[in-house]
Each structure stands twice: as C-alpha cells, then as structure tokens.
C-alpha cells in the first residue's frame, strides 16, 4: 500500500494498493506505505507519517453568543451553514435565537475534525 499526499500540507490525497508507480500531479508526493487520513498525515518536512492532534478548545457562552478559544491557526469553523477561518485562536459565534448549535472544527491535515454541541443561552 502506498499513499499520495500534498507535499505542501501533508494531507493524504489517495491510498493505492497497486505496486505500479502512479502518475503524480504537481504538488503531490508519494509515501511508500499506508497512511490513514482519519488519524494521520504525512509531515512535509520529515516526509514521514505523523499522528493528527486533537483540538483542545475552550468554550464559554453568554446570552446570544459562544466564544471558542485555544484554536490553532487556520482552523475552519462552521456553524449553521456559515463558515470562517480562525487565525487568532479565538472566535465568537453570535446568534439571534438561543438553542443548541452544532459547531464543526476543521484544521486539515494536522487535526482530527471535531463537532461540538454548543448550547447558546
């Protein structure tokens, strides 16, 4: 088993069972082994597989808003169909109606995707 990955980010693009050398597009590299994209990526510096990290976010809520902090740079935050990238570690999500909201955190390829259930008062 071999793995095609993005040579800039390390994100796994494809896993191939064939022993033949696959054609690689510009920006792609080949790792001679299997890398499960659910939990690992290929470190572009060492060119070796590395474990994805887990988010260690902190969530606080006040009336009409939730603040999520301790996010790594370039985290994509999605909620209620809206999405934005967080580069400064903290995001405040505001809503017009209180309730339970699903917030998705994504930071490809170094972090495992996470879905949070946040109740905003």
């Amino acid at each position, binding site marked *: 088993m071999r793995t095609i990955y993005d040579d800039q980010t390390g994100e796994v693009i494809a896993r191939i069972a064939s022993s033949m050398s696959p054609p690689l597009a510009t920006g792609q590299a080949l790792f001679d082994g299997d890398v499960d994209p659910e939990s690992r990526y290929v470190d572009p510096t060492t060119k070796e597989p590395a474990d994805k990290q887990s988010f260690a976010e902190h969530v606080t809520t006040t009336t009409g808003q939730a603040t999520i902090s301790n996010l790594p740079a370039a985290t994509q935050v999605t*909620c*209620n169909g809206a*999405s934005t990238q967080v580069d400064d570690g903290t*995001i405040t999500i*505001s809503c*017009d*109606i209180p309730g339970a*909201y699903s917030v998705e955190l994504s930071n490809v390829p170094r972090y495992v995707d996470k879905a949070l259930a946040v109740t905003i008062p």
Partner: protein
Amino acid sequence: MTTLSVDTFAVLSEAQAHYLARIDEDAGALRSKYLTVSPGQSDVYAQKAADAQAYKDAGYPADATSYPWVAARASSLSITAQQAADGILSTRAQWTQFGAPMEGVREARKAQVRAATTARQAYEAWASAKSDFDVIDQQAQQALGG
C-alpha cells in the same frame, strides 16, 4: 477575535411569522388533547351548548323536540333530556375553565411577538407561551383526571 454570525432569521418579520405560527400550532396541539378536532366539530360543540342552554333556560320542558341536539343526546344515551342538557353544559364549563385562559395566552403572546423588535424577543414570547400552555395542560390534567 474572529466573529461568525449564525442568525436563524434574515429579517425580523420572518421571525415574527415563524413564532406566530408556532404559538398557533402549540395552542392547537393543546386543544386537541381535550377536544375532538375534526372538520365541523367546533360548530357541533357550539350548537349543542347553545341548544342545551336554551333548553335549560326554558325550564327543562317535558317536550324536548324543539331542542334537537339535546333530544339526540338523550335518545342516543338513553337518558332524560335534562340529564343530556346538563351533561352538555357541564362539559362546556369544564372546557371553558381551561380553554378561555388558553385562548388568552395565545392572543397575548402573539401580541408580544408582533410587538417584538428583535428575533430574540419574538422567540421569548413564543417560549413564554409554551411555558404557559404547559401550566394550563398540567392544571387540566389534574382537574380532569387525565
């Protein structure tokens, strides 16, 4: 700090329309727990009650043929016309005890939704209506043994 707005409603009128409808739905659901809700049934209830009241006001005459709803109930249940009329009026009184405050809540909370200046205020008016309906429901269950 990054911000993300996830408003449910684009404009206030959209929120108001939503919560006005929710209040009517909740009121309807509660009503249906205590009334038979089917086409024309509310007219039947109203006519039965009016007929029974008229029969009572007339002093429960021996000949009930002028009071078709009372006579029909008496015949179908094999009871006297007076028993039939009193039964209809008792049922109406029980319903009025809870139906009237229920309607009061519905109208008052809908007025609050219409007066809301934010979606959150409209939501809170609906949430208050829901809470009020729950209290009425509990009282009705206790009173009616349901």
